[in-house]
Each structure stands twice: as C-alpha cells, then as structure tokens.
C-alpha cells in the first residue's frame, strides 16, 4: 500500500541558498529525515544559537544559519535544513550567552562547538595525522548513516559468572608489525584476530576507550629519543556518541560506524561479548586553561562540577569533572549508553573512575545517586553488564560499597592487592585469600561472587610479565621523572630487576605467571586479564604506558611463538574454568554440606587435610570444592582440589580422601616443565599416590576428583 506523504516535510523558511523549517527537538543531534537533516541541541543558558556548516575539511564555514527564535522549544534549538550534501559537510554550533565565570558561564560566540550528540566526529580521521593547528574548529560533527543490517545478531547475554574478560587496547592489539593483519591497529585488525581469541578461549573483549578522543592532547616529546608522546590510551573523550575514526581502517572514508558494527557482529558470531570502557568522569576540555571543544561553550554550568567561585572541581585528576548527577547530563549519559546498547549491540560497560558518577554537582557523595539508579533500572540496559571501577582520584574508595542496586559489579582492587602479595610470598595473607578465592563474601555478602571482577593486572599498572620482573616502576620514558604511575605495585622481580639471562630467575618468573593465572581461574567471581598476559607481554617495567604509541605498549605477536608454552598453559586454564561450573557459582559458597554429599561445598586444608593453617606466618593454603554442590547443588561436577604453596620450600600436602570410586587426577602443577605443567581438561592423568602430593616451592597444584 502506498505510504501517504507526511504533511510537515516542506521548507517554510529560507536563509540564503538554504531552505529550512522548524525541527523536532528529539532526537538530539543530527538526524536524517525526508529531504533534509534535523539538527537539535539544547542549552539552558544560551540566548541564541547558530548552526555552522563546513564543506569537509575546509577551514572557512560554508554557511552560518541562526536558529530562528520561533523554532526554539524550551531550551532546545532545532531546525531542519533541506537539500544538504550530507556526505560532504561538517557542522557545529555557535552559542551566545553570558560570560561570567564566577557564575559558571563561559559562553564565547567566537568558538564553534562540537555537537555533544555527534555520531561521527571528523578532524582526527587518521591516527597521528598532523592536524592543522590554525583550524579553529578541530573536532567536527558529521552526518552518519545509522542503518546497518545486523541480520539475526543480538547481544550475546553470556551469564556474567561464565565470562573470561580480556582487556584490550584497539590500536595496541594489532599495531605491531608482527601481528600480520591487513589493517594494523584498527577494528578490522581485531576482526582478523578472532580465531586467536577463540583459540585462547576468552568470551568477552573489553575495549579500552573507543569514543572519539584526541591523541594529540597533551602531546609532548620523549625526553631521550625526541619521539612524540601521544594520548595513546584515550581516557579523555571529545564526544560520547562517536567511535574513534582513527581506530577504523575505513576512518579516512568516514565508515568507522559500519566497520565497528561489522566487528561486533563478527565477535558475536564467534560467541565473544563486547564490553566498552566508558569515561564519564571528565572530558577532554580540561579546566579553564584547556581547549573549548564542546561542553564548555554549550552550557558550562550544566556539564561541569564547579566550585562556588566558578573553578573546575577535579575529582578525576585530569582538570575537570563531568556533572553526572545533573539531570541534563544524566540524560545524556543514559542516552549515550542506550545508543551503544541498542545501535551497536554492546554487551556491557566498564565505568572508569565510577565513584564520580555518585557525586552530586558540588562533589559530595550521594547515598542514592540518581544516575547510577537510572542505569541499574533502565530497560534497554537491563541485560548489559555494568562494571564500576569503584574509586576516583578525589579520595572516594568504594570497593564493596559502591551503590549497586543489585546490578553493578566492581573491579575488585582488593582481590588484586591480596593475590599479588600472596603471590610474592608475603605473610599474613591466608585469611584474606580465603575470602578472595570465594568471590569476596566479606565485601559482597548480599550480592554474590558475580559482583566481584577479579583481576591481577589491568591497563593501570604492570603487565603480568612485568609484575614478576620488577620491584619498582620504570616510567622515565613518560617524561615525568618517574613520578607518575603507582608505587604500590606489590610486585617482586624474582631476584633481579628487569631483563636477565639467568635461567633460574627466568623459570621462577614463568612459574609465578602461571601461579597467578591458575589462582585467578579457580577463584569464584569474574576473571579478567590484560591483552598479552597470555604470552608474557612486557612494557619494560613501565606501569603507566598511557602516552606510548610504540613497541613499548603494542602487543608483540612474536611472543606467541617464543612463549608458546605459557600460551598453552593459559589456554588450558581457561578451558578448565569453562569445563567446571563448580568454579562459577552465582551465589556465595556456604562452607557447609547442604546436599548430603558428605563434603562441604568448600573446605579448607593445609599440609594436613582438613586442617588449614590460618596462622599469621602461613604461606600455604589449599581448598577443595565439592562437585555435588555446583550451582547450589543443581549441577553435578567433579571435585576440585587446589594447593597453593607460596613458600620457598616444597611442602607435602596430605590429600583429602574422595568417595569410593573416585580418584584424584592432576590438571595443573606449575613446578613441572611443559608439557607436564598442565593438561587438557578431560585428559588429566591419574595421580599415582592418592594420599599425598609434594607441591614444589612457589607453585600451585590443581587436582580433579572423578
């Protein structure tokens, strides 16, 4: 049946050669409509607004069209412009309003502002492409096609307890020449590595910030080599609705939206979820000395937390703090996440410095932050994983107390700290280790282990290889006199600082890496590793490589060959975790026998079975999981016994007895040289001596009872 034409799609006004009509306030941003583009932007305090159009990459505007006042509805300026060559234009806005910094107003009509809702942003189309520094409009909105044929694709919805998260930097993952991909450092590059990710066995890739950012922000030269240090990590957003053009092989053609969606579709087809690291705690505009790109000129008082004198609160440590619990900003954050969840089929979000999202406009922590509540209950985000880095740079530390509404998981910094200390042989850790292994019921007693994202490494800090190779950070190459980066690394170099030919040190380091991975894999909660940990990626002891777009931070794929044994170990550990539901419980272990198997769901042991050593000087801990209690007793699994000996001498562990007909088999023994350090799940060899096991110095042993 023929569709009847809308009666409101014809121009009613003209401005020079352009035909216009009143637009519709929603959706915000630039939207294709019949015959034209609808532009909409809001500002509480602007007195007027002008749409500025450019031909792509030209420095002078093509046209400046003031929004007629009769087109304004409330605080929203909207307008349809007809007949635009939408693929060849860029747009921005000028806003007039008060300039009164003490009151929080910094309107400046000489500046052209980026649309906060821009879905594609031009100006940094190719990574590292030298910008025209004379251009007064550096980051420009473009018009996007938001249609995409997803076919039957939809968010994967893997239960959170079954996730194995792989934190990756888009560019760093394939930029190294050894990656062998056609388009290094891009979304397309990741796609070529999907077979690798599948072989490794991860099922969730967490991408470090992909929203448009300026790699030239704070750029400076390397103090020794003179190389350019860039904003490589990208924790500084220019816009929240646009994927970084320079992360796309087709970014130069403005096709990054399609390229990213095609990547997500392919990852989903291969059973891999996509999580985004999102940064709502600050923007790239810095404080009053920083550039005016967008928010400062559109509605400074609304978007930023300001002191009573009009200065910028700095809870992020980067110059400004986004005013997340202001209702307008809150709506923008919600719109943003809904957009990514609905239009890009994103499976989850990890929120950087998330404690900021719980502060009120004057910085005070809120007991019931509206933004966090909104996100927890939003219908579109209902099945997305929400993960909080539950602290900020302003002194708020909320691991275990983040306002969760039963939904938010947390990066468990206490897991990291406890395991690192235990790993290097500190005393006084066994009590805390028992909590961390169980999914931290001391922190999340009302939530369950799935609130705990367990990690030993993340982008902040040492890689796993460096954690066991350096006692101290070595960030001189950052040009800040090694003052940046954390000093609390809880790392141990195994006897020598940095690279060494000494085979014993090398073997110990390798074993320590395996110990770390093994412990991570047998802990309740949700494990995460950093890209390259599986092949011992090193940053040369730099624990804050945020500014290095170089071999220092890129994944070196030659390590896959030279560290093939480690890769095999990690791969088998991942497979082991996936094969055993008893490692992936949704509810806390009770330390009781509630199904009548004769064994508690979890029991603790020392060198004597059933007698753990909780003393302050103990460096050993063993536990056994009863397979009949998997998933609250609803699933039947094997028994698993784990012995962790962080002492420098081997210890003989008496093994707990199994039921008639069942015997212990060895899955992993980190003291053994490959290939006997780990076995393929299901192929574990029978233990000759069922009574006891000698666990080597600084090693972990995992047995399967079946």
């Amino acid at each position, binding site marked *: 049946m023929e569709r009847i034409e809308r009666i409101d799609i014809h121009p009613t006004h003209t401005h020079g050669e352009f035909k216009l009509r009143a637009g519709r306030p929603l959706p915000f941003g630039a939207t294709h409509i019949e015959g034209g583009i609808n532009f909409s932007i809001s500002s509480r305090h602007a007195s007027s607004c002008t749409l500025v159009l450019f031909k792509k990459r030209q420095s002078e505007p093509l046209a400046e069209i003031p929004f007629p006042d009769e087109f304004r509805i409330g605080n929203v300026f909207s307008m349809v412009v007809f007949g635009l*060559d939408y*693929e060849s234009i860029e747009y921005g806005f000028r806003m007039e309003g008060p300039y009164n910094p003490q009151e929080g107003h910094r309107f400046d009509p000489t500046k052209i502002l980026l649309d906060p809702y821009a879905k594609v942003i031009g100006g940094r189309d190719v990574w590292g492409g030298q910008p025209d520094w004379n251009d007064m409009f550096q980051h420009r909105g473009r018009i996007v096609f938001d249609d995409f044929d997803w076919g039957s694709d939809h968010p994967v919805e893997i239960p959170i307890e079954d996730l194995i998260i792989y934190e990756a930097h888009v560019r760093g993952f394939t930029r190294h020449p050894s990656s062998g991909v056609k*388009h290094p450092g891009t979304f397309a590059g990741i796609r070529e590595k999907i077979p690798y990710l599948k072989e490794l066995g991860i099922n969730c890739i967490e991408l470090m910030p992909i929203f448009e950012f300026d790699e030239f922000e704070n750029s400076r030269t390397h103090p020794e080599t003179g190389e350019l240090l860039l904003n490589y990590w990208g924790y500084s957003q220019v816009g929240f609705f646009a994927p970084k053009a320079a992360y796309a092989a087709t970014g130069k*053609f403005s096709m990054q939206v399609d390229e990213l969606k095609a990547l997500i579709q392919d990852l989903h087809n291969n059973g891999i979820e996509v999580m985004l690291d999102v940064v709502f705690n600050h923007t790239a505009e810095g404080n009053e000395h920083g550039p005016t790109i967008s928010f400062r000129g559109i509605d400074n008082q609304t978007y930023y937390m300001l002191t009573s004198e009009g200065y910028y609160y700095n809870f992020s440590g980067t110059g400004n703090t986004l005013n997340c619990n202001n209702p307008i900003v809150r709506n923008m954050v919600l719109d943003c996440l809904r957009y990514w969840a609905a239009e890009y089929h994103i499976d989850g979000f990890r929120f950087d410095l998330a404690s900021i999202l719980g502060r009120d406009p004057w910085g005070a922590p809120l007991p019931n932050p509206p933004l966090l509540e909104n996100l927890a209950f939003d219908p579109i985000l209902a099945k997305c994983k929400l993960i909080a880095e539950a602290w900020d740079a302003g002194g708020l530390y909320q691991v275990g107390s983040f306002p969760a509404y039963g939904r938010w998981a947390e990066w468990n910094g206490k897991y990291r700290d406890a395991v690192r200390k235990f790993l290097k042989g500190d005393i006084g850790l066994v009590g805390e280790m028992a909590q961390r292994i169980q999914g931290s019921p001391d922190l999340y007693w009302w939530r369950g282990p799935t609130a705990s994202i367990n990690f030993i490494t993340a982008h902040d800090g040492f890689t796993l290889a460096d954690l066991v190779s350096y006692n101290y950070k070595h960030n001189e190459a950052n040009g800040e006199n090694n003052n940046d980066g954390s000093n609390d690394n809880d790392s141990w170099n195994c006897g020598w600082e940095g690279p060494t030919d000494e085979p014993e040190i090398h073997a110990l380091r390798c074993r320590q890496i395996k110990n770390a991975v093994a412990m991570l894999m047998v802990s309740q909660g949700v494990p995460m590793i950093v890209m390259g940990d599986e092949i011992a990626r090193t940053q040369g002891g730099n624990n804050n490589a945020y500014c290095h777009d170089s071999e220092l931070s890129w994944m070196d794929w030659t390590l896959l060959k030279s560290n093939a044994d480690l890769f095999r170990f990690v791969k088998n550990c991942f497979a082991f975790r996936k094969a055993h539901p008893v490692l992936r419980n949704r509810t806390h272990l009770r330390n009781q026998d509630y199904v009548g198997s004769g064994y508690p769901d979890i029991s603790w042991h020392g060198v004597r079975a059933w007698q753990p050593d909780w003393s302050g000087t103990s460096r050993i801990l063993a536990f056994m999981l009863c397979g009949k209690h998997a998933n609250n007793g609803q699933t039947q699994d094997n028994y698993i016994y784990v012995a962790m000996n962080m002492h420098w001498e081997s210890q003989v562990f008496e093994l707990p007895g199994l039921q008639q007909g069942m015997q212990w088999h060895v899955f992993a023994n980190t003291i053994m040289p490959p290939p006997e350090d780990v076995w393929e799940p299901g192929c574990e060899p029978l233990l000759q001596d069922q009574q006891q096991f000698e666990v080597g110095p600084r090693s972990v042993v995992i047995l399967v009872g079946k």
Partner: protein
Amino acid sequence: MEINVKSSGQVTVVEISGDIDSNTAPLAQDQVLPLAQPGSKILLDMSGVEYMSSAGLRMLLSMYRQISRGSGDIVLVGLSEEIKDTMSVTGFLNFFTTRDTVDEGLQALA
C-alpha cells in the same frame, strides 16, 4: 559518474565508472532499476568505479536487493582491491555475489 548499458546474450551488462556517492548514487539507481524485470539477468561491471562512499554502498545494496526480490539475477564484477577490502571491512561484501571478470560473471548468471 557514467553508466553504459549493453547486452550480452540474455544478460544486461551495466558498466559503471567514476565515483558512487550521495550525489551520483540516485542517478545510478534511476538508470539501473528500470532494467530489472522479472527473470532478467544483470551484470554490474564495477571495474571503472574508483570510489564508493557509505551512501554508494547502501544504494548498491538496496538496488541489489530490489532486483533479487523481483526474481531477477544480479552479479557484481570487477571490484577493485581497495573497494572490495572496504566492503569486507564494513560488512557489506557478504551480501553480494561477486566475480572478478565479466566472463566469470556471465558464467555465474548462466
């Protein structure tokens, strides 16, 4: 952008050259769609196409589908390496039947 139509036996061969973008795509569509009748066979020779924008890709797909839906047969031929790579990376390539040369395309339609 230029369009050249000719026949090769049962097949209508459409040679496109130049850029296909938001300006030229509608023209291409206007000229090619009328050629598609039920049961027709169309070979789109793209070897002269230097560049396709997002709009171009979408027009091409839309046109391809309309012809296929109307029980016609259509094949793309001669995509440059760069265009093929772009289509692959953006998820568009899989929708089309493609061949490298006109002869192979004619065979595919036979």
